[in-house]
Structures are given as structure tokens and as C-alpha cells.
């Protein structure tokens, strides 16, 4: 997976994206090293979701280039999709299929072998073993979210992209989500997640970054974080935001 070649897990250079009305991303640069958990903060409409969708090959950049796992986005988006797992706002599951059917379908779409074992493994991780044959429609919102995470890690991707994975979860689900994230991060997975909850993001992330005015306005290691400057960049942006 090019890990040996010393290329970073994610590299973004001069990324521009607008939807025709005003620019969302304006020359964004970002590098994420292998095995790190990066948390991106940003106000509503700052372009967090757009950035993740660009990384996940769901949008096409207007300008700039993206490398994920050393693969150039413009050259082989299909190969990128093979090595990423994505958790988005919506669970991206079929409501009228059971947990097992959903996972089987997406596993086959990824061309995986050994799917039953992988499903056992994933359902165990997200704690939905007993719901295996239940239709997704009958699951609670939090359970659907957990299944969505299961779906994202089914093909054991080296890189995880998560867009506000904690939104809409209750306290208990949040705690187990935190455990899950720490577990995943510990397993040498690279992860990028977005949030607008400062405390939770700081608790979970190894690196933090603030997305503001279409660029990464501040980025630092969690351990060497200049909290005053971080909060300054982030909170001021919230005040200014219309």
C-alpha cells in the first residue's frame, strides 16, 4: 500500500472546489501521516464535508491534486475507493435489508473473500451480533450509525474517513464510539474525522486541524497543541460566520 515508500497516507495540494456560487475550498493543503487520527474542526459550511467527499472521490476537484495512500485521485479513483472506509452523515444502508445482507452486499461489491468471517468480526466490534438478521429499518438511529461504521471497516481499509461520526448519538453510544475509535486508531489505521465539538475532538484526535475560509488555518499535534491559538482560530471563525 505504498506505506513502505514513505508517502503520507493523505496528501492534498492546492485543492480548490466551488459549487458555482462561491468557493468552498480555496487552495487547501493537507498531509496526514500513516497511523494518525486527525480531527478536523470547522463551523457549519466551512467545507468539512466537501473536503471528506473530495478525499473519498465523491466530488471532483476544480483544481489541485489529491493522493490517498500514494494513489493519485485523477489517475485511479477506483483504487482509492478500495483502501478507504467512509462514515458519512447518512448511514448509507438499505433499510429493507438485514444487517447481514447489507454487509454481504457491500462486501461482495468490494470483491472481498471470507465475507462471513469478516461480518462476524465486524458485528462483534460494533456490538450488533444479536441484530444480525434484523432489517436496518427496525434499528435505532444509534445502532444504524454503528452498523454504518461496521460497513466502513468491513474491507479492513487502511484509511478511514468519518464525517461527524458522533452526531445524533446518545451518551452511551458516544462512549462506545470513543472506545471503537481508539481501538481502530490503535490498530494502526489512519483516520480523518470532522466534528464541531471541541472537547470531544480534542479527546479523540492525535492531531487537530481547523478548516476556515477554505484552507487549513491551523494544524498541530494534540500533544504540542497551542490551545489558545487553536481556540482562537476556531472560535473566532464561529463568531464571524454569518
Amino acid at each position: 500500500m505504498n506505506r513502505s515508500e514513505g508517502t503520507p497516507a493523505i496528501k492534498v495540494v492546492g485543492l480548490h472546489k466551488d459549487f458555482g456560487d462561491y468557493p468552498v475550498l480555496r487552495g487547501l493543503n493537507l498531509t496526514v501521516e500513516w497511523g494518525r487520527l486527525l480531527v478536523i474542526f470547522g463551523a457549519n459550511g466551512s467545507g468539512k464535508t466537501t473536503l471528506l467527499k473530495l478525499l473519498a472521490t465523491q466530488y471532483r476537484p476544480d483544481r489541485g491534486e489529491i493522493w490517498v495512500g500514494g494513489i493519485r485521485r485523477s489517475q485511479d479513483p477506483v483504487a482509492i475507493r478500495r483502501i478507504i472506509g467512509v462514515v458519512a452523515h447518512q448511514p448509507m444502508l438499505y433499510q429493507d435489508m438485514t444487517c447481514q445482507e447489507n454487509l454481504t452486499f457491500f462486501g461482495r461489491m468490494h470483491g472481498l473473500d471470507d465475507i462471513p468471517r469478516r461480518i462476524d468480526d465486524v458485528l462483534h466490534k460494533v456490538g450488533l451480533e444479536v441484530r444480525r438478521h434484523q432489517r436496518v429499518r427496525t434499528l435505532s438511529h444509534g445502532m444504524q450509525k454503528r452498523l454504518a461504521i461496521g460497513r466502513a471497516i468491513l474491507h479492513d481499509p487502511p484509511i478511514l474517513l468519518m464525517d461527524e461520526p458522533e452526531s445524533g448519538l446518545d451518551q452511551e453510544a458516544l462512549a462506545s464510539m470513543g472506545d471503537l475509535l481508539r481501538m481502530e486508531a490503535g490498530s494502526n489505521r489512519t483516520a480523518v474525522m470532522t466534528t464541531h465539538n471541541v472537547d470531544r475532538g480534542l479527546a479523540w484526535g492525535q492531531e487537530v486541524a481547523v478548516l476556515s475560509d477554505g484552507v487549513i488555518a491551523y494544524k498541530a499535534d494534540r500533544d504540542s497543541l497551542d490551545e489558545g491559538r487553536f481556540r482562537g482560530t476556531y472560535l473566532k471563525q464561529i463568531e464571524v460566520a454569518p
Partner: protein
Amino acid sequence: MGSVQTDQVTMTSSTASRSYLGSAKSVLLLAAGAFMLANMYLIFMWAPTEAVMGHVQRIMYIHVPMAWLAFLAFFIVFVGSIMYLWKRESRWDMLASSAAELGVVFTSLVLITGPIWGKPIWGIWWTWDARLTTTLVLWLIYVSYLMLRAYSSNRSQGALYSAVLGVIGFVDVPIVYFAVNWWRTQHQRLVIGTGSLEGSLNADMRTTLYFSLLAFTILFSFLLWQKISMKRTEEDLRSIRYSKELTRGARIER
């Protein structure tokens, strides 16, 4: 700092070239006005009255050029759409969408002038003949093109979707024409003198028709140009408004 200066330089040079283009556009406007005036004279005073149809035949000098320009417009939509899908530059979208708007206007006028000409001659407003029916389908395709732009959730989505339709719609036109033509052959309901139109025209009439084609094409070029520069101004306004918001934001941050 350096980048800011470059920005300013490019902006002034583009402003300069635009004002130069602006005066070229005024020349085109004057030309369009002059030619259209001359055209009106030729059509209504100079061209001889057709023996069988009488004065109403003069509408042909407007009807035919408009039909030709409508097809030209949709061809431009096709080219602009392909270029947009290839390059993804907004100027190609501006060209395609401007041409589509003009094409719909001209096709509408074709569909209005046709019956005005047809009623006294054929005794009916409308007949489902191959050319009329194809024009109607064409009109529907490009109306849906404009609707698709209006109903898209953002500007770049509208540009992308309509470019796709600009290609699909144009490729569809010959197939529509074949189908409608055969369908007409199948159902001969009333026979219209469909002999060669030009053959039945005398030399003066032909001159008038060709002059009218030229005049309307100049008018079309001006309108297209005008439409595109309006869209460009809109885009400029949007980016100025946005950069103002940015400076305000940046100042507060500092």
C-alpha cells in the same frame, strides 16, 4: 503579497481587453441595427408580392432565418456542452447556456410565425408535418434543458447536468427527425406543397431571403455575445461580493 499584485495585474489587463471587446460589441450592435432596418425595407417594400399566397408569404423572410438560427444555436449548445464536459471551464457553460436561451426564443418564434403563415395558406393553424413536429420536440428538449438548470441545487451541478443534456438532446435530434418523417409518410392526411421552397422563389425573393439570413445572423451574434457578457458580469459580481466578505472576515481575525 506577490500573488495579490499578480491578481491585480491580470485584473487590469482583463478589464482593458474587455473594454476593447465592449467597443467591438457596440460596433456589432450598430451593424445588427442597420442590417435589420435594411432587412425590414427589403422584406416589406422591396421584395415582390408572391402571386399565390399574397403578402402573408413575407413572413417567410423571418420564419426561415429564425429556424436556421435555432438550429445553429442548438449546435452551439452541443459544442459548448462537449467543451464544458472536457475542460470544465465556466466560459463554455456560459456559451452553451446563452445559446440554449436564444435557441428556445428563436424556436418559439418559429413555432409562432409558422402557424401565422400557415393559417391563410393551408386553412389550419397547425399540422403535424415532419418539420413542425420535429421543431416542437426540439423546443421541448431545450425547454427541459433550461428547466434543469433552474431546478438544479447549485450552479456547477446545473452546468454539468445541462451539458449532459446538451449532448444527449442534440444527438437525439436526427433520430427524432427520422421517426417523425416516417410517421408522416405513414399517415398522409393532407398534402402540402412541399416542393423545394427555393425553387418557387424568384431572384428578388431569394436575394431578400439571403439578406435576411445575414441580418438575423448578425443580430443573433450580437445577442449571444451580449448574453455571455451578462453572465460573465454576474460571475464577476459574485466573486467580488465573496472576496469582500473574505476581507471583512480576515480583518476581524487580525
